[in-house]
């Protein structure tokens, strides 16, 4: 009897050391090492997964069938909790997300090891880069061309290419719509977007955090600014196009709220 009690006491006592040994302090970060990171853009529409070809009704009472959602992500910056930034090299920092082409991930390499709490990126191409001229960015220009993300060199990049068909009170028969966001001589519609990460993205040598971002396509027209496609139907009544003017400024404001980070997946895996 006494033996048993002693044995149990010994067992419990021993296990208490196991508890104390199991904690492991976060090692200091060696800032001279580099890791990778991934931005994963999960395209949705108003809380649902974006399915090209499927219809939904927005709060403008227009029923959209989205057939294309492409956008340019650029100038990625990683920000630590103390505010210090790591600016991804500008000449490597232009990417396209394309739902129809299944391009949803941006893989970034050689990022200084660190604990990053925010990310910042541009939606579109900044004027500084654009003004460097075509030859300075020929490779990306050609890539953007292949994904329908340019007009001509003189009119520049499409920052967002959002297309499909829609019906509304004024057009019960479905007609095409095209929303092409971009800058023009009148307005610079490139915008920076800052996102907080719900948990730290831990960039380490050998570790590759995946930042799972939800992009809400609905917000482009149905955000803080409401833009009706039916107000943009051509005279023949055959399609609606938004490619310039005040609407692009409104879209630029809407897209400030188009993205949010759902979660960050740390470690070496590539789960989303």
């Amino acid at each position, binding site marked *: 009897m006494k033996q048993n009690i002693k044995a149990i006491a010994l067992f*419990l006592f021993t296990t208490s050391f196991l508890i104390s040994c199991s904690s*492991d302090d976060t090692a200091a970060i060696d800032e001279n090492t580099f890791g990778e990171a991934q931005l994963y853009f999960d395209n949705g529409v108003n809380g*649902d997964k974006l399915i090209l070809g499927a219809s939904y009704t927005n709060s403008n009472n227009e029923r959209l069938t989205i057939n294309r959602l492409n956008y340019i992500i650029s100038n990625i910056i990683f920000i630590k909790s103390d505010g210090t930034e790591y600016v991804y090299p500008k000449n490597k920092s232009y990417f396209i997300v394309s739902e129809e082409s299944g391009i949803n991930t941006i893989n970034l390499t050689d990022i200084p090891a660190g604990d990053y709490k925010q990310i910042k990126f541009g939606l579109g191409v900044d004027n500084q880069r654009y003004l460097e001229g075509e030859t300075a960015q020929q490779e990306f220009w050609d890539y953007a061309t292949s994904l329908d993300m340019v007009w001509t060199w003189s009119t520049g990049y499409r920052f967002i290419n959002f297309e499909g068909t829609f019906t509304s009170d004024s057009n019960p028969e479905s007609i095409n719509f095209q929303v092409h966001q971009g800058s023009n001589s009148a307005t610079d519609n490139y915008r920076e977007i800052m996102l907080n990460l719900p948990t730290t993205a831990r960039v380490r040598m050998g570790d590759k955090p995946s930042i799972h971002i939800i992009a809400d396509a609905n917000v482009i027209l149905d955000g803080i600014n409401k833009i009706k496609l039916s107000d943009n139907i051509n005279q023949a009544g055959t399609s609606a196009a938004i490619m310039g003017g005040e609407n692009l400024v409104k879209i630029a404001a809407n897209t400030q709220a188009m993205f949010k980070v759902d*979660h960050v997946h740390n470690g070496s895996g590539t789960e989303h």
Partner: protein
Amino acid sequence: MKKLLILFLLLNQTVNAQFKNLLSDQSSLTDAYFLDDCDACGCSASGGSMGFNSMLSEKFIGVRYMYQKYQSRDGVFNNSPWIDENFNTVQLWGRIPVSSKMDVMVLAPYHFLNREKMTDSQSLSGLGDITLLTFYNLHQTQNDTATFHHKILVGGGIKVPTGVFNNKNNGSINPSFQLGTGSWDYNLATEYIVRANNFGLNTTLSYVFKTENHKNYKFGNQFNYGSTLFYTILVDQLQLVPQIGVAGETYQANQEFKEDVPYTKGDIFFGKLGIEAGYRKFSAGINVMLPINQNLTGGRVEADYRLAFNINYIL
């Protein structure tokens, strides 16, 4: 003094135990502990209130089979598909009294988990986390003629990370699709049983302290509670014990690198029904738990039901 020492050790240890005690008659079938090894391993969404009905004696060895069905949303959107997750567990368990007031238990589960995703199906099988438990009988009504018989137990123990934890399984969907937590976890538990005539009421509370594993992932601490009303019918040497009760679990958020992981805390409340039968050296039980109310992992996991069978041999 001895009592105090033990109590101190148990409390000091942030001990571990999921258990139930439904029967403790003077008949061959006495105390029955219902343990759940399931906190967060293969089911952080399931936890410790399973309260599977099985009748055990002071010394026994048995096999318990548990089935848990979940649905988990494969994606981050409202219209992301729900996929079925099936958690099967076969568990060897045994209990050895070390004194008139103290028992030590061992629980060794083997899990078979599977889920069908849109793109592929995943399955995991293997040894789960082994649990060692100690219970101490703090108080028991000694007067046989009393109308109400009370019994109070306190317990605790440790869960050893013998099950594999693989953080690649931690995607957007159910983070508990794991064989083990990968961590040393500790429980504290109390149990109160009151009986009058053939009726009994068993109430348990337990708290599970989970620690960070080698992948810097920590499953959320877990509070379990449950209460079961049971009735004992004797037919010759056969003893039947139908029972009805409620049970619940509350989970704190999981943590990764000491930061809360979004959509991991939650709670669930079950109703349960079961019956047990005991005959000579054998006992058997069946038990089902149905959720009444739940909010697991931000609504991204839903428990459908749990089912358990057990067969025990009384040593």
